[in-house]
């Protein structure tokens, strides 16, 4: 039996009217995606968990002021990006990356298998090393550049959406991506050189 998903706008309206369960549904709907966004900006699962809780708490407190000028999706992502950037400024590069919990999903990814079992001995990096290098390279980017790379390259969001979330122009988004890619290429040279 096919079930139709309640639109975000309806859940938002119900939350604004005082229905806390409607907001719970929004939390369930948005938490996996926002988790990815925050995690790729912080590179730490514990920080991500705390921050994600704060993000939803903030959204819940502010939802009465949400007027629907943008989609709820954009609004939630704006809150998440702003809070993540503020958090990173405060954390001030307390680089405690939880790289011990390498995810199982990555092991079966054909791209990863190809990247780690390359013919060149220099490419014989193990799973942990590659993930560590990736995270280190990401953490060397500025907060704004990292946010753009996360949303575009990792989460696959279009430029226009990222521009709305970051309250900037599409040109700025493209420019940030360009410089971020150049910087990442220099940090990950041993893995991406042909």
């Amino acid at each position: 039996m096919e079930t139709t998903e309640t639109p975000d706008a309806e859940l938002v309206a119900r939350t604004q009217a005082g229905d806390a369960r409607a907001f719970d549904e929004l939390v369930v709907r948005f938490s996996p995606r926002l988790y990815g966004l925050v995690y790729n900006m912080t590179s730490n699962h514990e920080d991500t968990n705390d921050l994600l809780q704060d993000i939803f708490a903030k959204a819940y407190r502010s939802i009465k002021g949400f007027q629907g000028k943008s989609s709820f999706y954009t609004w939630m992502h704006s809150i998440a990006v702003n809070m993540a950037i503020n958090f990173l400024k405060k954390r001030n590069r307390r680089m405690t990356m939880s790289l011990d919990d390498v995810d199982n999903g990555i092991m079966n990814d054909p791209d990863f298998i190809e990247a780690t079992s390359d013919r060149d001995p220099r490419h014989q990096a193990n799973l942990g090393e590659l993930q560590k290098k990736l995270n280190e390279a990401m953490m060397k980017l500025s907060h704004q550049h990292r946010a753009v790379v996360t949303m575009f390259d990792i989460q696959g969001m279009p430029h226009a959406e990222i521009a709305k979330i970051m309250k900037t122009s599409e040109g700025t988004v493209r420019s940030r991506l360009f410089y971020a890619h150049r910087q990442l290429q220099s940090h990950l040279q041993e893995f991406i050189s042909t």
Partner: protein
Amino acid sequence: MTPEENLLKLLRLKRHEQPPPGYFDDFVAEFRDRQRAELMQLSLREIIWERICDFLQPFQVPRLAYATVAAVAVAASVAIIARPSPQLSGGLASTRQPMSLTAPQPVMIGNSVPVSMASTSSPSVHYVLPTQPANYASPRSF
């Protein structure tokens, strides 16, 4: 494959970085618990401050500007409250003159002019108030 394409392929690997299984099942419950705890802890000042920040957020005001505006508002309020009104201060200042029973001095209160200052013939000090009596009619007799 170009270095750019290789980089994008590597970045896509990060999509697999997910929390432990079952994490999202517990997330909502944890969110509710935390929310209740936070609501109990939030002070009125914190709530008001957050509301102000939320209100100003669409204008893209830098965060430091909130504090500056608040500081200026407080300073302006203090300055307005602390500054005495010129009318009141004139009256109060003149009443602080030393008093003497033998040589009474005319006393200024507000804008009222003592008659003694207008005509020197009258030795006693009395005042002409700018207000009119409510009624000149004689009281009703029964």
